[in-house]
């Protein structure tokens, strides 16, 4: 794979040979490997090495973008020429404020050697630990273990230059019986911090405890939402709402709501690319350092994330918070390091407070129905339990919900004191009253 010197050489070649008013180059090079298992065996096992180089040429307010996965100089020159040609064809875009000049971001955490050097044999060993747990309880196991090592660089003609090396690893473990399932997952920079056997044990416990599920009628129930379910809700809030482009397009729930109470005062949500509890990333895809952003504070809508373009169009203009995605994209800036502030409750406290309700491990296949009202739908999955008189008494068949996310956050009665890093956000569990279930699983 490309090393730092090679990545920097790509940036220098593009910056030095560009002929347009401005130019930006984004290099994403790396290695990844994924071991996937199901039916108690590894059935897919893959690895790849590659790079992606994207060049944005700017002539006045005309933009052209060309990307290639070939890092050789002749290929880079061809891509630069194509981006330049496209910029010459493009009409002026009056919305484009120019490429950002940004200070150098502070260095992020070092990449982790255990992840960089992860081998197929080590991934196989981790999977075997899961399979041993499954065999002990006659369960069917499935899941995946992934490691990635990425070199990311962004440079532009206005002086921005950002470089980082990141390691990421994630593992999921699902255990199934004939009529139930359980899941646990972990995400970390350091693959050696992931305890496969512990994940398997949690998943197995859920699967075994939810056997012989009962059927429950749809309706409103008090729910204990575990972190994976909470993170699903938070993801949609970030994508559809706490995004300055959605706000400026008037399709965000934040429109007309900034400064107003939109959730329980127990809810505080922010984005912080530097927080070590998460998966730190110190700059965005325009090379702008990430700033911590307060999105919701004690239930009050506080703000949103920006890229350089939405920042320039804000009223009054602000500076980018460092949340750009690779250009061009239709999404705008997105918070990718969200943290839901923990409270003081334990899950045991939450359960004790519930007379009759549900514990939800995670949601499945969620989708937004109404962006302004933040109504989304989806199913529960991999461990849904009936709570009666403060105790889990049975598993239940999966349920479909149709629910406003903000209404749910308005009905939060307890926030967990401990959280976990999920795929898109760090979240504690929540106790939510009146969660709306609108259907049940067919089998």
């Amino acid at each position, binding site marked *: 794979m490309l090393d730092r010197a090679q990545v920097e050489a790509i940036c220098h070649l593009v910056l030095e040979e560009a002929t347009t008013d401005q130019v930006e180059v984004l290099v994403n090079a790396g290695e*990844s*490997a*994924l*071991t*996937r*298992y*199901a*039916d*108690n065996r*590894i*059935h*897919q*096992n*893959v*690895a*790849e*090495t590659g*790079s992606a180089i994207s060049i944005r040429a700017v002539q006045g307010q005309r*933009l052209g973008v060309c*990307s290639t*996965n070939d890092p050789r100089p002749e290929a880079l020159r061809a891509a630069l020429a*194509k*981006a330049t040609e*496209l910029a010459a*064809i*493009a*009409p002026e875009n*009056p919305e484009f404020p120019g490429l950002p000049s940004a200070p150098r971001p502070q260095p992020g955490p070092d990449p982790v050697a255990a992840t960089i050097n992860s081998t*197929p044999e080590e991934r196989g060993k981790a*999977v*075997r630990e899961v399979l041993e747990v499954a065999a002990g309880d006659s369960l069917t196991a*499935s899941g*995946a273990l992934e490691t990635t090592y990425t070199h990311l660089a962004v440079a532009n003609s206005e002086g921005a230059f950002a470089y980082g090396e990141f390691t990421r690893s994630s593992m*999921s*473990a699902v255990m199934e019986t004939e009529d139930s399932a359980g899941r646990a997952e972990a995400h970390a920079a350091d693959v050696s911090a992931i305890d496969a056997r512990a994940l398997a044990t949690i998943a197995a416990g859920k699967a075994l405890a939810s056997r012989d599920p009962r059927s429950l009628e*749809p*309706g*409103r*129930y008090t729910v204990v939402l575990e972190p994976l379910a909470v993170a699903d809700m938070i993801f949609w809030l970030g994508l559809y709402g706490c995004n300055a482009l959605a706000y400026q397009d*008037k*399709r965000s729930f934040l429109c007309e709501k900034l400064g107003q109470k939109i959730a329980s005062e127990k809810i505080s949500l922010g984005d912080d690319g530097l927080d070590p509890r998460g998966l730190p990333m110190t700059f965005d895809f325009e090379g702008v350092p990430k700033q911590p952003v307060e999105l919701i504070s004690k239930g009050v809508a506080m703000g949103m994330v920006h890229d350089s373009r939405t920042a320039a169009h804000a009223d009054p203009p602000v500076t980018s918070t460092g949340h750009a995605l690779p250009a*061009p994209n*239709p999404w705008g800036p997105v918070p990718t390091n969200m943290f839901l502030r923990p409270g003081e409750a334990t899950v045991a406290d939450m359960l004790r407070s519930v007379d009759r309700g549900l514990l939800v491990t995670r949601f*499945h*296949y*969620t*989708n937004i129905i*109404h962006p*302004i009202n933040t109504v989304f*739908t989806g*199913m529960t*999955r991999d461990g849904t339990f009936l709570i009666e008189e403060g105790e889990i008494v049975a598993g239940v068949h*999966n349920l479909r919900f*149709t629910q406003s996310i903000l209404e749910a956050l308005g009905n939060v009665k307890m926030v967990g004191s401990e959280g976990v890093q999920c795929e898109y956000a760090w979240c504690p569990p929540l106790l939510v009253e009146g969660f709306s*279930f*609108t*259907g*049940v699983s*067919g*089998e």
Partner: protein
Amino acid sequence: MEELIARAVAAALEAGASYADARFTSHEDEEVRVKNGAVESLRSSSAQGVGVRVLAEGAWGFAATSTLTLAAVEEAAGLAVRIARASASTQKTPVALTPVEPASGRFPAVFTENPFDVPLAERVELLLDCDKLMAEAANVALREGFLEVTHEKKYFESSEGAQIYQEGVETGAGIECTAVAPDGSETQTRSYPSSHGGQTAQRGWELVRELDMPSHAEQIACEAEALLTAPACPATVTDVILESSQLALQLHESCGHPIELDRVLGTEASFAGTSFLTPDKLGSFRYGSEQVNINADATLPGGLGSFAYDDEGVPGQRTQIVREGMFTGYLSSRETAPAIGQTSSSGAMRADGYNRIPLIRMTNINLEPSDWTLDELISETKRGMYLCTNTSWSIDDKRLNFQFGTEVAYRIEDGDLGEMLRNATYTGNTPDFWGSCDAVCSADEWQLWGVPNCGKGEPMQTARVGHGVPPARFRDVRVGVTQEEEDGE
């Protein structure tokens, strides 16, 4: 390139593989995206590389590289074998592949007008014209247009002797606009010819000409604006007629995915889920009413799911999935076909680029036409709704309980299409829903839709699949799903 691929296969065998295939893929695309009169994206991209898939010690391994040198593909081949050996440590029985006659040949892309030959300035102008027409027609806050053309070249070689070169050209286009209520409480979107990127096919620029987007720009802008003040879809149970692009997504989620045999056998269990269509149901399960006939056809001209050979070198073919309502077939692979007692793959293994392994993916999953016209269907419906153009989708991990939202619904009263309704949703259970289908429109109303964003697998792969669908009617469907008002506690 042939030399590189042959070397990759040979290197894998030398490293100990009992079977190997290698696939070179080159992908180029150009995208134009316009928003509110400005060009948001004028982008060209290319990617190429080699993926090597092997069986060693009875288990799978795969490695990919974007470096096109003999040394790099040899290294990838060696890594694939090492990975396979690591996989073998958990293998219960060795993977066995159904036989396939090693094929060779060259299969060019099929189109009338090469979309890459259409000047980019002309493509930009077309979208800007549509934008202007939408702006003139109604007071909508967001106007968007999209055009994408792609060209893929693939060369596949296997240790069994297959040598297959294929090319494909795709063209996609669409427009949409979103109206926002003055108080910000509501947004409504209408799109043409469909949502989520419009229409995409393995065709050339002739597709864009046929779509004639400027002629529809005014209508969708007016409809988006009108939807802001339309009544909300009521919560009720009624008959529904699904417009063909919405029915295409219904077919995709509730038939296309559950017939993927790898999913049925559990290999997607931890991610997208499994399937209610378990092997014991094959040939004996009533999937839908007698009106329902569904096939999987990789040979349809222009379909996004069409090809000469899949990524295992198996010929593209047609498989009957549902005949007069009875479940009759799966999408399968060389590894999975024996699990349902078959001696050959149905040819559905496809990979999203050089750096992904092939998975069982939909080809073109089609609802076969019957003999109704849409006008007859509406006029023969006493009370119901006509639901058009998808906005949201969700289905459970067995592909049973689903819920969809559409951009617009029209009330049907005594056989007449009536008022427009906003925020329409409907929900149901897959076999009950298809069992309630009592009328399917004719070939005149049948349309082959492209779905270019079908997600599956880890690492995530995006497949481009097709659905040929006419409108159809379903009885007693629950519509207008909103939050539960009653306290269920």
